[in-house]
């Protein structure tokens, strides 16, 4: 154990040493004047960032300094400036993700404290949100339970996955293995366009056409059902599944497929016994990403659901649609303030974490697959 620890700390020291050496090399190789410009740029952009975070009216000053120094650098030392700016832009992607995490978590803290619950003598913040199913922002006791919305999101996601996964994988097989080139050239843009249809348009059609129809078919009181929201969201997640799964399927080396075909198998046998197993992890990560899309889908759910945060009775009653984690935010942000607004942020945090975990999981699976196939990542 100790051995492992030392080797790990050794590696860390090595890595840090490397970094320092490289930085020193860069400093040595670069013109001092260019270094000065880079230093000014870095310092001023950092100052601008701090000013922006501190809601200062003076943010514009360091930002102007940054623009000026960048302009000077661009004219005099273009290569170094370009490198620095590209690095800053790269860092900004991480920074944005970090800011999202910090700000949505920070806003949700008060309600997490409010909804503390004591279990076995230990007070756990936020636990009451998951122990009882009551959301009531108006009449005391005021409670912000996430249970009904989690239930709604789970129902919608399950139905959506049941729609998107088989149809999506089958369409991906069609596009990557079966379709003749001309058909492919028509279907592929079609799938892309399907991804482009705005969710509010889906929601509008669902609201005006599907919901009344469903309410009539199942003789429910009022309109809005998880079943049809799920189906619509599934259709919206379909293009994601198709395009990611298609990429995975076409990354299976041609030699494997032709090797199988040379044994006298049919195309379909090759697909089921060679292509699909080889691309299995890629296909499952496609399904995962589709699930992530379905969880985060907002507008269709908002306009098609009832907007009453409670559990359906019984729990499997998919013919009634109450509220999902996404739709409660979109519906209530307007009149919410104080604790209720913070509760909406909790819904956002749950969504964000779930989808982030799914996204990282999908990437891990995909990375494993490419490693196995020996392709480049």
């Amino acid at each position: 154990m100790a051995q492992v620890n030392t080797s790990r700390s050794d590696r860390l020291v090595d890595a840090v040493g490397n970094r320092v050496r490289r930085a020193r090399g860069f400093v040595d190789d670069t013109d001092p004047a260019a270094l000065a410009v880079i230093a000014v740029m870095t310092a001023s952009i950092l100052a601008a960032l701090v000013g922006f975070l501190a809601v200062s009216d003076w943010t514009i000053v360091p930002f102007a300094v940054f623009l000026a120094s960048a302009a000077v650098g661009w004219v005099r030392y273009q290569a170094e400036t370009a490198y620095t700016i590209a690095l800053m832009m790269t860092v900004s992607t991480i920074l944005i993700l970090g800011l999202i995490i910090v700000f949505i978590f920070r806003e949700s803290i008060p309600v997490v404290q409010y909804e503390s619950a004591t279990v076995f003598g230990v007070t756990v913040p936020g636990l009451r949100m998951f122990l009882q199913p009551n959301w009531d922002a108006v009449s005391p006791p005021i409670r912000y339970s996430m249970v009904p919305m989690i239930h709604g999101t789970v129902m919608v996601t399950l139905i959506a996955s049941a729609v998107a996964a088989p149809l999506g994988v089958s369409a991906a097989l069609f596009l990557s293995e079966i379709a003749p080139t001309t058909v492919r050239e028509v279907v592929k843009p079609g799938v892309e366009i399907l991804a482009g249809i705005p969710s509010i348009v889906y929601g509008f059609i669902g609201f005006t056409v599907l919901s009344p129809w469903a309410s009539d078919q199942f003789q429910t009181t009022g309109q809005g059902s998880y079943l049809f929201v799920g189906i619509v969201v599934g259709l919206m997640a379909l293009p994601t599944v198709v395009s990611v799964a298609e990429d995975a399927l076409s990354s299976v080396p041609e030699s494997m497929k032709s090797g199988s075909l040379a044994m006298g198998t049919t195309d379909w046998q090759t697909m089921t016994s060679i292509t699909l197993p080889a691309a299995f992890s890629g296909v499952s990560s496609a399904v995962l990403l589709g699930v992530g899309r379905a969880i985060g889908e907002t507008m269709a759910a908002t306009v098609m659901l009832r907007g009453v945060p409670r559990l359906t009775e019984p729990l499997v009653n998919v013919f009634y649609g109450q509220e999902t984690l996404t739709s409660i935010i979109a519906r209530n942000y307007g009149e919410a303030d104080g604790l209720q607004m913070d509760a909406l942020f909790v819904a956002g945090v749950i969504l964000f974490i779930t989808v982030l975990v799914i996204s990282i999981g999908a990437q891990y699976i995909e990375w494993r697959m490419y490693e196995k196939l020996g392709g480049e990542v």
Partner: protein
Amino acid sequence: MAGASQTDTQLVEGNTTQTDAVAAVAIGLSAVLFALAVAAMFERVDLTGTLAGVQTVTLLGGLLTALGVAVIAFGAGSRLGYVETEPDPSAGLIAGFGAAVPWVVVGGGVASQTLGLGTAGGAVGALVVGGVAFALTVLPREDLGSTLPLGSLLTLTGLVFLTGVIGPDWLWDLGWAQTASITAEFFIPVATLFSALYGGWASAKSYGGFGARGRHMGAYVLVYLNALSIVAFLFILVAYVVVQGVPGLLTGFELGLGTGPQTTVLGVSVTLPVSVPFVMNGVALLNDFQGVLPAIVGTVWLVIGAVVLAVPLGVGAAVFLTEYADRGRFTQVVEVATNGLWSTPSIVFGLFGFAFLIPRFGNGKSLLSGMITLGFMLLPLVVITSREAMLSVPDEYRDASAALGVSKWQTIRSVVLPAALPGVVTGVILGVGRIAGETAPILLTMAGGTFIPGSQTVDVLGSFQFTAAPPFVANPALLEATSALPYQLFALITAGVGLGSSVSDPNAFRWATALVLLVVVLSFYAIGIATRYYFRRRLKHT
């Protein structure tokens, strides 16, 4: 492939043409049933009425029974040696599960409802019947296994319809606290639809003569049907919005010299020869026809702002990741972060904008906050697509440039970026199409009222001001709440009946808004896809 295998069969086996024809008829019958089921589901075919002189339900039942008998007959004929086929010893586990699923539903439904055995009895019934179907599929030789359970399912469904056990008046009250019932209007089309799919699968297998070739046929029928349905769905969706939206869009449409509003093009004042009030007007009390011009302009500015923010950031990050950075911990973190941003739900971006941007830009919803929020959403798309485009630039290009002795940055600027440009442009256009239709993020950051008067159409360029107080530059237009097409549509939907006072025909107004939004978004997609084809063709020619 299918054609080749067919000639093959005919050459090897003498007189299979007739049986082939029977199987082909069965496939055709499944297609007819499928179409009828879809039509009935959308109430294009009346279940209580008659079709071709026969009661619709009776007709469906008759066709299903015929299809089921044909499927069983084919399987039995093959087993008894009347039909020459090449079956495997077993139909396989997948086919077994495929056949077990509908029988589980049938068994569960009959045991719990018809026989009244309750939930536990239903579960037992489902397991027993499903298990039998599974065994019947897996255990016998393939020709029998893949036809008998499915054929009997079809025959059973058909007979239930024929005998009127489930007729047009059938109703199953689920007895739940929130009442819901399964009606015949829903059940009959859905049962027919799935039966037709199973029937088509089984008959396609028979048509291929079972074995590897039969399975190939069976699977291809389903996969082709799926692809066709997706394309058909897209067409129906777009066509429906167009048909519903055009009347609203063209209210007050006029064509002819001097009919349109005046605009200034290149300093010359012109009167447009066409007038489409819906896209040229705002909403005002005195307007003859109301329109959504402010929302269109809002969307345009929103997109411009997002692109100005996200494209340089994204392309710069992609340059760094592909050209400068070595693969390692840092690039991995950036990759995870971009993919994480890509999959972050749009409403979370909205919340973030609400918490982070709004306090920093005038404490109210504003166009600028909307632009930046959407820019953040666009950023990961730009990074991912630009990276892909740069990675696909062959290394020979870079080596050739480096061999000339130029610096790395010069190589990037004059070799990599131009070569990657088509990919970047296409990616950006497609990404813009996506964010232009986003409602959730702007809901919390930017959007104002339902109807915006035409006088409030934003004019970003015209409202820059210089001030003496700290920010020194001010632009009231950027800091005001405005509308955009997707938000406008959402507001119109949620406003419900209250619209009547402002617009004469609220429904036509809504559909027309949806149509304009769809046209705006899809034209981005059309341009993006066309650019890709253009560049691809040019690459092929040179």
